[in-house]
């Protein structure tokens, strides 16, 4: 046994149940845990918060990594990595999952960051809440091995929840961690984790597990691909990301797309982005706020007016007045609402 004083471990804490439990299992062994959470700019919870729908329970929108830190009694440091991470999203070495989710590269990216923290803190190893066989792309055995190797953490990456299914790591071999007190959880069922949470008195955790990443969302991914294909300005981690999640999106030309608010909360959110942009609405009617990205010529403005009319309460009329505004400029258009058939070709 080789025990070099206080054992320190660096963990990736998403705030989900698994990473919270993994940290707790190690803390039960007297290990000093340092938690990190990397903010990628693609958390759907963050986006829901930005829109701020009234009536949505605050607890459902909380930052789960912060909540996990409070439960564990440790600071989980949130580290912004949006721009760097975006390169991983656009150029993943191991490809995307079903949507724009680069799950394997994402894990490697975050574990490299954790390794840097391990080195800086003089910690002994890194841990995660990964569970063997839980996720199809990144948590099968060969993926776990690949991730560990690519992150430069061979032998130094402990997965406490599935450790007994996995080869012994250096922390176990050297007696820094008692393997017998680690776990043998595998698969997609959460029964084992929920039972363990009860044992530890951890009552609040997000349901269902995971699912906070917008990149796994089909609609969001389609819109992000559209942004990339048209080389539209996009800064991850800003409200550019939130705009992809809000409203109905239509690509009108290579340079121009529109976002149509679906309710008052979305209209209010879009209204915060009017500066320097064209925006459309139907006066004296139930109307969406239609925000334009790009600079539409008069013909395109007419077309956008027709989209606006289609989603207004006057969509059944043959001709509708629409107001188009950009700063001090204001135009009044009389247009026929667009048909759904004509719209579908532009829907993103």
């Amino acid at each position, binding site marked *: 046994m080789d025990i070099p004083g206080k054992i320190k471990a660096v963990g990736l804490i998403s705030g989900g149940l698994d990473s919270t439990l993994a940290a707790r299992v190690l803390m039960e062994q007297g290990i000093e845990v340092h938690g990190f*959470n990397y*903010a990628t700019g693609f*958390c759907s*919870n*963050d986006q829901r*918060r*930005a829109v*701020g729908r009234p009536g949505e329970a*605050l*607890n459902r*929108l*909380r*930052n789960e*990594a*912060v*909540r996990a*830190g*409070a439960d*564990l*009694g*440790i*600071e*989980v*440091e*949130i*580290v*912004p990595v949006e721009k760097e991470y975006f390169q991983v999203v656009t150029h993943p070495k191991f490809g995307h999952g079903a949507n724009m989710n680069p799950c394997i590269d994402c894990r490697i990216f975050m574990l490299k960051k954790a390794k840097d923290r391990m080195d800086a803190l003089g910690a002994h190893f890194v841990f995660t809440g990964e569970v063997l066989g839980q996720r199809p792309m990144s948590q099968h055995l060969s993926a776990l091995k690949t991730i560990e190797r690519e992150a430069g953490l061979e032998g130094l990456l402990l997965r406490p929840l599935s450790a007994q299914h996995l080869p012994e790591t250096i922390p176990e071999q050297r007696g820094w961690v008692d393997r017998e007190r680690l776990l043998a959880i595998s698969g997609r069922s959460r029964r084992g984790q929920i039972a363990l949470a009860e044992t530890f008195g951890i009552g609040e955790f997000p349901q269902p597990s995971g699912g906070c990443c917008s990149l796994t969302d089909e609609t969001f991914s389609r819109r992000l691909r559209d942004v990339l294909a048209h080389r539209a300005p996009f800064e991850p981690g800003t409200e550019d990301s*939130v705009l992809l999640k809000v409203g109905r999106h239509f690509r009108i030309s290579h340079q121009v797309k529109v976002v149509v608010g679906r309710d008052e909360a979305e209209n209010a959110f879009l209204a915060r982005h009017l500066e320097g942009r064209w925006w459309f609405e139907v006066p004296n009617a139930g109307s969406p706020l239609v925000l334009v990205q790009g600079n539409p010529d008069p013909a395109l403005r007419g077309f956008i007016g027709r989209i606006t009319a289609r989603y207004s309460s006057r969509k059944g009329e043959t001709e509708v007045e629409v107001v188009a505004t950009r700063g001090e400029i204001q135009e009044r258009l009389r247009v026929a609402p667009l048909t759904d058939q004509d719209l579908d070709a532009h829907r993103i």
Partner: protein
Amino acid sequence: MAREGAPERSGPDEILDTVGFYCPIPIIKTAAKIREMRQGDVLEVLSDDRVILVDMPAWCKSCGHEYLGHRLEGVEIHLFVRKAGRGPSAAAR
């Protein structure tokens, strides 16, 4: 103006304006700011993200800082945190 446990005192030692920023930016900025402050100092954080009312107390609990409460001014939330833990004490200045 609504109050909930906001401190009745002369004023904070530092003010951090995070209005217009959403999760997790206010917490990241708060953590960075408070690292520069002295033990016992009070930080006032301004935010218009209502979920900060859940996150800030939780963050304080995780770090050991004292959450002193908040005050509402229109859509702005003013939250007060007293720094605890390591570092020089404000009283020692």
